[in-house]
């Protein structure tokens, strides 16, 4: 059936979604670009055009580079740790016995929970007299680490809370991928006398490429918008030691009331996150095809 202008019913179907999507997702992206050339205050409702000045200021903004660095470190850690542990869990659980069925269901639960719940859960575990330090002291390891109060460890704590949820996700995606690997292939490799590492290197690893792509992209996206977990865990502190880029943008816009400046940072974040995701997709996607 051909669509022509008379097909009012067709437009009734297609337009609501597209209109809503354009007004609340696409148009805001354009507005962010537009705003980034202005000095805007919500307090006084002033809009002053200042050209590229916002971007010029970002060059001198330590906090911005600090946050970018934090997010990059977190994403590298999250991509490596979650993927490795995800594969290990998936290989372990890839079995038809009932026990593994139950474990497979349970292992995914962290991903179902709200990041802010996870943030507060880990916040209570990681305080100075929290469970982790108590637990370590049972083994006479009196590290007395201030997991949330020390700038370096604060970032470690954030990574733990972040990876915990992402490992759950990765495991499930890898499991789904493993199911698609034919049994015969595995048996064939085993007969060839390959050892475990070889088997993984030449059989599983290439065949798991699609799952690796999905996981890596999802991990990157969730690191770039990381907000609630960190808010609950460290509040971005101590100082600015764990302030993510999303927190910086929200703080600048709504707490410091510099909407234009925040928009220009958003624009840079959009470019950085878009580029990273794109590179990951292309690079990993190519790997999928190669094999």
């Amino acid at each position, binding site marked *: 059936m051909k669509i022509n202008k008379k097909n009012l019913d067709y437009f009734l179907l297609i337009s609501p979604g597209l209109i809503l999507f354009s007004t609340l997702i696409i148009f805001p992206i354009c507005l962010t670009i537009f705003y980034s050339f202005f000095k805007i205050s919500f307090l006084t409702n002033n809009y002053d055009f200042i050209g590229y000045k916002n971007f010029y200021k970002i060059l001198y903004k330590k906090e911005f580079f600090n946050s970018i660095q934090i997010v990059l470190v977190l994403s590298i850690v999250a991509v490596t740790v979650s993927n490795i542990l995800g594969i290990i869990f998936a290989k372990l659980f890839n079995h038809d016995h009932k026990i593994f069925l139950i474990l497979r269901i349970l292992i995914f639960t962290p991903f179902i929970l709200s990041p802010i719940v996870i943030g507060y859960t880990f916040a209570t575990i990681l305080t100075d007299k929290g469970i982790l330090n108590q637990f370590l002291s049972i083994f006479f390891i009196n590290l007395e680490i201030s*997991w*949330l109060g020390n700038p370096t460890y604060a970032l470690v704590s954030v990574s733990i809370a972040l990876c915990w949820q992402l490992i759950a996700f990765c495991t499930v995606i890898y499991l789904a991928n493993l199911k698609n690997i034919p049994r015969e292939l595995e048996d064939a490799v085993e007969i060839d006398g390959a050892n475990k590492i070889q088997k993984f290197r030449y059989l599983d690893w290439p065949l798991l490429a699609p799952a690796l792509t999905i996981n890596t992209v999802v991990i990157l996206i969730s690191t770039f918008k990381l907000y609630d977990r960190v808010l609950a865990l460290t*509040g971005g502190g101590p100082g600015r030691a764990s302030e993510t880029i999303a927190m910086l943008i929200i703080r600048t816009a709504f707490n410091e009331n510099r909407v234009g400046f925040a928009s220009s940072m958003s624009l840079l974040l959009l470019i950085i996150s878009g580029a990273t995701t794109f590179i990951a997709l292309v690079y990993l996607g190519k790997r999928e095809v190669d094999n």
Partner: protein
Amino acid sequence: MNILKRLLILLSIVLIPSFGSAKQIELDFMVFETPNLPAEFWDDAIERTVKDFPQFKINKIVPPNVGSMGDYLKQLQATDQFPDVMMSNFAVAEFIEAGLLLPFEDSDLERFADPVGLGLTNGRQYALPMITVVESVIFYNKSMFEAAGITEEPKTWSDLENAASNLKKNNVTPFIVGGAAGDSWAAAWPLMDLVALNVTGKDENYLKDLRNGDRNFSDPLMEDAINAYSSLVKNGWTNSTALSLNYSELQQTFLNGDGAMYPMGSFFAGAVPLDHPFEIGVFPMPALDGTPRLVTYTSGGPAVSALTEYPEEARLFAVEFSTNVKTNADDLFRDAHIPNNKLFDLEKDMAGYELHPLIFEIIEILQTPGLQHVPFFTFEVGDYALLPGLQGEVFSNSQEILSGKETSEIIDNLNSKLIELQ
């Protein structure tokens, strides 16, 4: 038909009360909660005022955190939910400049003992001077002082350092400081005192120049003040837990006897139970140059939004709320807030309460003659106000000081923020 009828009935149930109560004046009132001033305090206080003025219907709003009250208000303003009335213990200057607060009339201020307070900008008062807080005091554990052989309260900064090193030798943590995550304001408390005592109290043009862009944070006085705070950390005189404690845990740490001295506002006195296991004393924080100065804050009462639908009524509510003698009494008892109400009489109105002796000591400190009273750093208004956004930077840099950063780095951070904001 049936459904339509039901809908109509439902609608009328919903609508009639709102028409009927047209005379009721609904005000959104932002308060704040702390361990000393929990929800009950505010509910009781609001109820007292509403009982006398039944035309008011008050919706209480609570920010997620005391320290972020100003931030939260900005967020509310941006989302068109700016409250009609708000307790003003945040940096009000920015809101006054943006024209968001309504000035009070002289007649509103008649009931206050000191009608000037902090909120005076261009000759108009924007926040009712409801209470006085002494910001620059240090509470101390008397038995720990005795055990370390310290017989007198420190009078100068070097006295304080001597006391700290003696305490340290005696295996006692000399200072309890800190404030994690959202409570960075608590971590900043000693710094705000030090800057007020040694920079803004000494050089009265500093803040004006800072605002005009004539000076920045690279200033010898400012360096000394920051050094004074970071030296406490560098000497190992502060608790290692500083950056993992929230405000109520911080207070509890001192009350548990985990350290000898606790620099905090006078309101801490309200948190000490009468039967506390060890005796606590209090002395004013000495200035580095020995000049007798005291950081005080007379303000903290309600401010009224310029956007409110009911300006007259909101002002009336604000005045009545802040001068309710029973509320003043409860406030003094719970949070050691010294009432600034002419009608308030310490002996008569506190008859039902057993006040902690610390509160009398604080009143004594406040009334010591010959002290130069200095406004609290980052809370100044008008020409002396910091640029909007700097307070948050001071807060988070205080956490950096506690994590051991060098003074030069802190000053760099503050300067680059200053450039960014100008």
